[in-house]
């Protein structure tokens, strides 16, 4: 089967610093793939590349066999910081997307589409509120509804739950799961939470430490669906997958050596000669010694 999304040796650097190197990734239609990595390793850069918000330096990104040349609503993105427009109500935020993607629809049909997806994320009662009046979890649901409402071929989730508290996180994970199971849409999830990845995804791919981060060996998640958070936690398969992903990430982390250069100020510890004449009433001048030290941490 032809992959829905195909990345072939994609690299990207910013200002001479290589962020992503040789990223190869294929996602089949209907798959749920999670990419797990440390923060600051270029996860968001990867999403931006696939979204078409930035262009790769080398390599190709194919969506449905066609190269990605710019952003478009055929890829629904849920941004890390929600990116809701604060001057619009929840309804208007989603309507902006629906109106743009289905210009030919009648107003009633558009409104129905918006209501449908707001209902799916259980936000129908909050439709006339503004994002500022919503909690973080609710905002992220609006963002999910907006991304889904355009009926994109693939849903890109950029650490969607990163800013939420653990309980809200768990609820939303289950909601994403149930929406995915109902809709069977292709999803690429980027996260820093291995457990989240395992609970949701069909396969997990660790992203190595930057600079020059690349994808590690993928780990399939053969756990039966629907998955239940409580029973999955005790599943030996779950533990094994987790240790494989974590071991790769931790080993990668250990390979990275950081050089720290510190400016040290050594205090002048010579005792003051009390017999010497005092010129002023100020404290005696101390001559601290400055030294630069470089330490390797790793």
């Amino acid at each position, binding site marked *: 089967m032809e992959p829905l999304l195909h990345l072939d040796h994609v690299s990207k650097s910013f200002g001479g610093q290589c962020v992503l190197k040789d990223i190869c990734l294929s996602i089949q239609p209907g798959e749920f793939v999670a990419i797990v990595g440390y923060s600051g390793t270029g996860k968001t850069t990867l999403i931006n590349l696939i*979204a078409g*918000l930035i262009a790769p330096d080398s390599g190709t990104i194919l969506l449905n066999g066609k190269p990605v040349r*710019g*952003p*478009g*609503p055929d*890829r629904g*993105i849920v*941004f890390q*910081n929600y*990116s809701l*427009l*604060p*001057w*619009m109500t929840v309804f208007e935020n989603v309507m*902006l*997307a629906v109106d*743009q*993607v289905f210009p030919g629809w009648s107003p009633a049909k558009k409104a129905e589409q918006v209501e449908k997806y707001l209902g799916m994320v259980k936000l129908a009662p909050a439709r006339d509120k*503004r994002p*500022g009046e919503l909690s973080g979890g609710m905002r992220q649901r609006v963002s999910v509804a907006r991304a889904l409402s*355009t009926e994109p071929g693939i849903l890109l989730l950029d650490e969607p739950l990163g800013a939420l508290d653990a309980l809200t996180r768990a609820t939303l994970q289950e909601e994403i799961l149930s929406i995915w199971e109902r809709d069977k849409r292709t999803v690429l999830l980027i996260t820093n939470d291995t457990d989240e990845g395992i609970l949701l995804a069909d396969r997990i791919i660790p992203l190595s430490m930057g600079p020059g981060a690349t994808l590690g060996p993928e780990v399939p998640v053969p756990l039966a669906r629907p998955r239940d958070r409580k029973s999955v936690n005790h599943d030996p398969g779950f533990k094994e997958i987790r240790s494989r992903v974590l071991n790769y990430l931790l080993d990668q982390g250990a390979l990275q050596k950081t050089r720290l250069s510190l400016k040290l100020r050594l205090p002048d510890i010579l005792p003051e000669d009390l017999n010497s004449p005092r010129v002023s009433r100020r404290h005696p001048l101390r001559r601290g010694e400055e030294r630069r030290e470089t330490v390797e941490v790793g």
Partner: protein
Amino acid sequence: MSFLRKIHADTLILPLLGVAAIVLLWAMISGHPTSKQVKDEWGDTVTVTKRTGISADLPNPVETWRASKNYILKPFEKRGELDQGILAFTWLSLKLVAQGYVIALLLAVPLGFCLGLSKAFSKMFDPMIQILRPVSPLAWLPLGMVIFLSAKWNIPGTGVSYTASDLAAIFTIAICSMWPTVLNTAMGVRAIPQDYLNVARVLKLSRTKTLFKILIPGSLPYMFTGFRLSLGIAWLVIVAAEMLTGKPGVGGFLWQQYNALSYAHIILCIVTIGLVGFVLDRLMSLVESRFRTA
């Protein structure tokens, strides 16, 4: 109850104390007439009235009130073109300011958007704006007179006509008051978070839709700050414009009464200008705070 008393002390009594202190200081330095009986060269006894005080010619508060009473208590009376109630003058000034201010906003907002959106445009015109911005209204007004020297507009059907001095005054108000709006709009556009622009890019919003759905609402809070500062300047400029053109209004009245040696009215005008400016600023900040929450 003590809570209420505290509110009153803070919002009413303390400001009133401040006003009283200033009036007291004014009474202390202002002059007052003193009469003396003296014998003149012919041996007649005459009464000579002289003003004494630190600033002998400055009218004291009581004199100011007496001279202004007629203008304040009959605020809309029109006894002549340059002899009207103080609110009638204020209305004339406000009309002029409104025209200049509207023109300023119509010019400033698009200019600000261009500056905020285009780096090249900004590089091209920013130095020019920085140079023109500090130029005083007193300098612009003569230029306005020259530009509109032979202009005279009659708006058909209304009987309203604009003379060269009207147009010069409006021009001066517009060009002096537009800069805060220009700069704040540009700043507001530049301050729109990249996330919002990414939403527009991902949804492939058209240019007009991006402008009306994202750029304008996103920069509105900044724009309103600019509008408020601009209104303050527009009101500041009115006095200069009316003084030099001799148009009826608070500023024109002030200058005319100075020339007529009727000094008490200068103080009346200053107080009026200050109060009107204060009210305008309050009104604008009310509007501003409504948009800030958006």
